[in-house]
């Protein structure tokens, strides 16, 4: 139904603008339906203006800027209609230390309304977890789970 889609679009766009502003520390981003009259005839476009910069085409954004944009979109949908589980594998691969912390804080906050399972190599992200699962193999290729500890002094390779 067209009206259902427009309702979803407006709510998520609203969330997306606020969440991106927070995650990027002042930047602007919004979603545009290419054909608002007949949304199913067109796509959904993202416009991004990182803090202090002009509007950028998506392909010109840096790796970290693209990641923040994509993550803001995911959190915007979650805020409208949460799934019970989010499984995020190394979504901080391009993020610098500052942005990894912002992400870690936001996941922690959003984890009150959904379960987040996040694979990461970065202390900056991991330190906001409620619970850490460590994985290792003893040089024989067999995975072992250990130390279900609360974050404290976790080194970058989880040991």
């Amino acid at each position, binding site marked *: 139904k067209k009206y*259902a*889609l427009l*309702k*979803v*679009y407006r709510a*998520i766009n609203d969330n997306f603008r606020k969440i991106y502003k927070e995650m990027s520390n002042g930047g602007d981003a919004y979603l545009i*339906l*290419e054909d608002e009259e007949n949304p*199913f005839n*067109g*796509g*959904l476009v*993202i416009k991004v203006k990182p803090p202090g910069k002009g509007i950028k085409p998506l392909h010109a954004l840096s790796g970290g800027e*693209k*990641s923040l*944009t*994509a993550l803001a*979109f995911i959190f915007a*949908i*979650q805020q409208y209609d949460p*799934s*019970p*589980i*989010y*499984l*995020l*594998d190394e979504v901080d*691969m391009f993020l610098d230390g500052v942005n990894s912390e912002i992400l870690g804080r936001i*996941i*922690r906050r959003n*984890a009150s309304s959904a*379960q*987040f*399972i*996040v*694979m*990461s*190599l970065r202390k900056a*992200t*991991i330190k*906001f*977890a*409620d*619970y*850490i*699962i*460590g*994985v*290792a*193999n003893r040089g*024989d*290729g*067999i*995975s072992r*789970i250990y130390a*279900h500890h609360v974050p404290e002094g*976790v080194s970058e*390779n*989880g*040991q």
Partner: protein
Amino acid sequence: MYLKAIELENFKSFVHKNRIDFKQGFTAISGPNGSGKSNIGDAILFVLGPKSSKVIRASKLVDLIYDGGKKGKPADYCRVSLIFDNSDRVLPVDSNEVRLTRYIKRTNKEQGYNSYFYINDESARLQDFVSLLEHAKISADGYNFVKQGDVTRIVEMTPVERRGILDEIS
């Protein structure tokens, strides 16, 4: 609803029986390269995404069975169970705990296998399994599952694909 635990048996780098407990909230999984972090994600997707094998880095499902390592013999089956707390009945099953299991066993044919699904240890048909997952919004091709390397996919997909995500939600 939340995932309480995963039980893995001979799944990829997880040999014999392993149980991993989870809590609500924000769980981080860390460890060295190649230790098995993404394999845990693959185990979850193995159960939640019964229709697509590409989603779990396997060209054929038998690739998921523990391969025996350097000198050992490959296992001939693997099984993964996801154990959910269902007190809020998000899953349309009348029990506080729901156990979803997928089991594959090699056959005598080269790369052949049989695949079985169980809901609370009772045999289930694929379509019942799939509709259960879709009902609870935990099917593997959702926007809420981001595989390693895919974080920027939302930005790189076409506008029509992206609008498709909104279609799914409405």
